[in-house]
């Protein structure tokens, strides 16, 4: 029997799905703006951020109302809790897309050395990670979520490589400093999008499997996690004891 509450939950999901595709588009457009040197596209990304912010506020209000008026439990509770954090992550991704667009608007053109960096590969990976994260949420698919979480390391490695390459380029040619710095930042931003996409994937895991796998507790990933809480508690207690000893000294 579909209840009034089920209808409200469905509305929440619909709003979130719309936010997902909006933000996904923002990222795609920002990266395409760089690829095709399309200024008007970049400006549109900046302008559309207002819409993303509106969705952010709206979704948060819906979640608050659902908590207050319906006392959700079990899967409903996890869904609404995660809806709030996924919402925040999406909004940050939106902000990052805007930053990437704005930085490129200042540059106006693609530098030649771009081919030497791994920015393009990163763009592809980031687009795929975001797409998969969103799909894993829409389809309630923890395997897809897993894929996203595993891709994050590759992204980090590529970012580190870009770092080296761009610094070399800057040492060789003073003229290249401004564009190189811009793309250093852009590389960092792409890596951050990857982090947020990973967060979304972790939330999907929480909804479906009821397991909190935040902050790369990978040893607990997809394995027996009964003792996770106990281990974490013990580690924290030890830390506090050590700090207490230091203070005494």
């Amino acid at each position, binding site marked *: *029997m579909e*209840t*009034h*509450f089920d209808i409200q939950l469905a509305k929440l999901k619909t709003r979130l799905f719309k936010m997902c595709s909006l933000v996904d588009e923002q990222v795609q457009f920002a990266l395409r703006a760089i690829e095709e040197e399309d200024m008007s596209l970049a400006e549109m990304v900046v302008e559309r951020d207002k819409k993303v912010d509106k969705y952010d506020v709206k979704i948060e209000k819906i979640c*608050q*109302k659902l908590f*207050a*008026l*319906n*006392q959700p439990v079990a899967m409903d509770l996890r869904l609404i809790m995660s809806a709030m954090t996924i919402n925040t992550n999406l909004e940050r991704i939106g902000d990052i897309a805007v930053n990437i667009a704005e930085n490129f608007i200042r540059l106006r053109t693609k530098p030649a050395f771009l081919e030497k960096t791994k920015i393009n590969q990163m763009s592809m990976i980031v687009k795929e990670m975001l797409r998969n994260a969103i799909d894993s949420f829409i389809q309630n698919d923890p395997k897809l979520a897993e894929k996203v979480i595993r891709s994050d390391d590759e992204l980090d490695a590529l970012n580190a490589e870009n770092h080296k390459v761009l610094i070399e380029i800057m040492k060789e040619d003073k003229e290249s400093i401004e564009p190189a710095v811009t793309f250093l930042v852009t590389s960092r931003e792409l890596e951050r999008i990857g982090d947020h996409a990973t967060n979304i994937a972790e939330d999907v895991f929480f909804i479906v499997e009821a397991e909190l796998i935040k902050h790369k507790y990978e040893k607990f990933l997809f394995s027996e996690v009964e003792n996770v809480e106990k281990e974490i508690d013990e580690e924290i207690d030890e830390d506090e004891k050590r700090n207490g000893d230091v203070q005494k000294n």
Partner: protein
Amino acid sequence: MDIKISVKNLEAFYGKNKVLKNISIDIPRNKVVAIIGPSGCGKSTFLRCLNRMHEVIGGTITGSIQVDGEDLTKTDPVLLRKRLGMVFQKPNPFPTMSIFNNVAAGLRFNGVRNKKILTPIVERSLKQAALWDEVKDNLDDSGVNISGGQQQRLCIARTLAVDPEVILMDEPASALDPISTSKIEELIFELKKNYTIVIVTHNMQQAARVSDSTAFFYMGELIEYDKTTKIFTNPANKQTEDYVTGRFG
């Protein structure tokens, strides 16, 4: 906003005992207003003032109650009670009558005996009360030979059969099991499309789930009356907040 019932400066007395103090509240058309508050705060008394049932146990009132602009106290109570129907806490179907006759009671006892007229009304009322499918083959069975949840829905059908404009519910689900309760709550969502509903409940979560506006009564006074979302996310009055968070003494 379309006001169905307008209450101004209502005070109610049982003998010399003042049980309601200066209540002013507007009940909007086709919405659900929930009345919450601790035991003895006067919420049931208030409800009974609306259809003048307080007079049956010797209560008196001062102040004004208007339904669609007409002063209640100048209307014949018998006619008034056909416009404002009431559903009670404990299901009270008439034990000597069949299901059919129970639903038709309000009409039969006022002179309508023609089965051709009664049958479609009984069917419509039972459908509106979400009971038709369960009893359509047993309409001649005794009205008390069905489960508690079904009896309560039978009482709702009986109230609906006289075609009221307002349905007053006095803790309609407090004597029922959780599944029957949720059936009745879903029913309320359907009914409010065509009727104005005022529901007294000691179950706050029910008020939160079901109502558009909520009124908090305490010791005979109306402490706060606002949209349900506001009452349960950010009530203006400290007493209200203490009550809804369960911190009441």
